[in-house]
């Protein structure tokens, strides 16, 4: 019987994992290019486009680091290439761990077991890959219909565009209410950090406005994360 650890970093697995992450980067570059082209039409100056890209990059530093720290734990379970592939696309470390465990259990083994077999590893990979494919298939099949529905809704003119903006803004606030509520439910420390961030963000935004420092706005989320982590460091 072959052990999973013998095939977890097989060269072909590395190749497929690299193709996946390169497609993700390629897609982002293509979308930046087509957005830049349409940017003047929607009222964005070149300067604003640069500022948006910089803000997106800065704001993702903290979350990316946090995502990767959690993802590292997956390496010991499923190896480097599969971890890279699964974390590089839709899904997160916790949900992938669930998928991998369920797959391994279906093969009658445990993920963290020393004698974890190649067959059980294959079952775990099947479960993660098929399970994660659901999001991709729904997105690729239905986004066009959703877009059609949206343009039908807005083509009526009048107040419809205004209502669509109300709905989208409320949806965004609702999503963050959901994320925030989940954190509050986690415990006291999370609640404290949540409230600290809630109070610090307006101060940063106010200071950026008052002293006319645009970089401060671009760094606002990064700073809030740093402050939240520092407060958290002293809480635990």
């Amino acid at each position: 019987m072959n052990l999973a650890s013998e095939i977890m970093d097989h060269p072909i697995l590395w190749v497929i994992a690299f193709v996946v992450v390169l497609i993700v980067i390629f897609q982002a570059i293509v979308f930046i290019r087509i957005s830049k082209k349409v940017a003047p039409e929607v009222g964005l100056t070149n300067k604003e486009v640069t500022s948006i890209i910089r803000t997106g990059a800065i704001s993702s530093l903290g979350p990316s680091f946090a995502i990767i720290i959690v993802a590292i734990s997956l390496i010991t379970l499923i190896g480097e290439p599969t971890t890279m592939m699964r974390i590089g696309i839709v899904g997160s470390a916790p949900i992938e761990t669930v998928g991998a465990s369920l797959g391994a259990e279906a093969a009658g083994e445990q993920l963290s077991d020393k004698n974890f077999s190649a067959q059980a590893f294959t079952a775990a990979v099947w479960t993660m890959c098929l399970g994660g494919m659901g999001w991709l298939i729904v997105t690729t099949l239905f986004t066009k219909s959703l877009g059609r529905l949206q343009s039908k809704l807005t083509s009526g003119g009048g107040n419809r565009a205004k209502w669509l903006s109300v709905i989208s803004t409320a949806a965004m606030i609702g999503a963050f209410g959901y994320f925030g509520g989940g954190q509050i439910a986690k415990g006291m420390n999370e609640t404290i950090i949540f409230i600290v961030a809630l109070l610090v963000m307006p101060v940063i935004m106010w200071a950026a406005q008052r002293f006319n420092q645009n970089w401060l706005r671009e760094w606002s989320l990064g700073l809030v994360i740093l402050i939240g982590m520092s407060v958290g460091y002293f809480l635990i």
Partner: protein
Amino acid sequence: MVVLERHTTDASPTKSEENFATFHSQAHFWGRLTIWSVIICTIALPLYLSFGLGYHPGWSVILTGFLSYGAVVSIIWFVEPISYYPILGVSGTYLAFLTGNIGNMCLPSASIAQSIVKAEPGTRKGEVTATLAISAASIVNTTMLIAVILGGSYLINALPESIRASFSFVLPAIFGGVLAQFALKKPVWGIGAIGLGIFAALGPVPPSFQTFICIAGTVLFAVILEKMKAGEQAS
């Protein structure tokens, strides 16, 4: 190249509308192409393990694993893309669902960027802004991931435990910060959303419907408030 699809009934769409339609059809084309390519890779990896290397665990095992996992996530496959669509728009949906980490990375980056250029979500300006911000975030995230996987993981393991532990506070900080930004503009909506969020997390709500209930609930709440405001102004 890509066929232009126009669904507006207007006799003569303006130049900028036409350009935006081109943008959308390009987004559909590249979005679908890239996602289908990833789907093929996603299936190629286990196929290779099964039949290339010969470690096929048997279809019944695969089906058992998939069904027990599907029982947890299959509703979310549909609920998430539909719930997030109004925020992300066409291009943002393709990006965010390929790169993942929507709540903890894509949406916060997009929403901070929108506030900088004063673009509302759901408008064209908002969609282009979100697309640019999410693209940049996706590139940073993927590049960091590659770097860490290729050699940096021992560096992270070398970090003191207390610092690694404080990374668990990244999420509440992001969510608090982004909510505060909206609360400045729409305080009542923000309060309603947090209320719903806490209810969804602690109340008797099935996990797969929590996102949907919070988003749909806040939308309903906001629409009612706006209608009431419009009614007051009219009278």
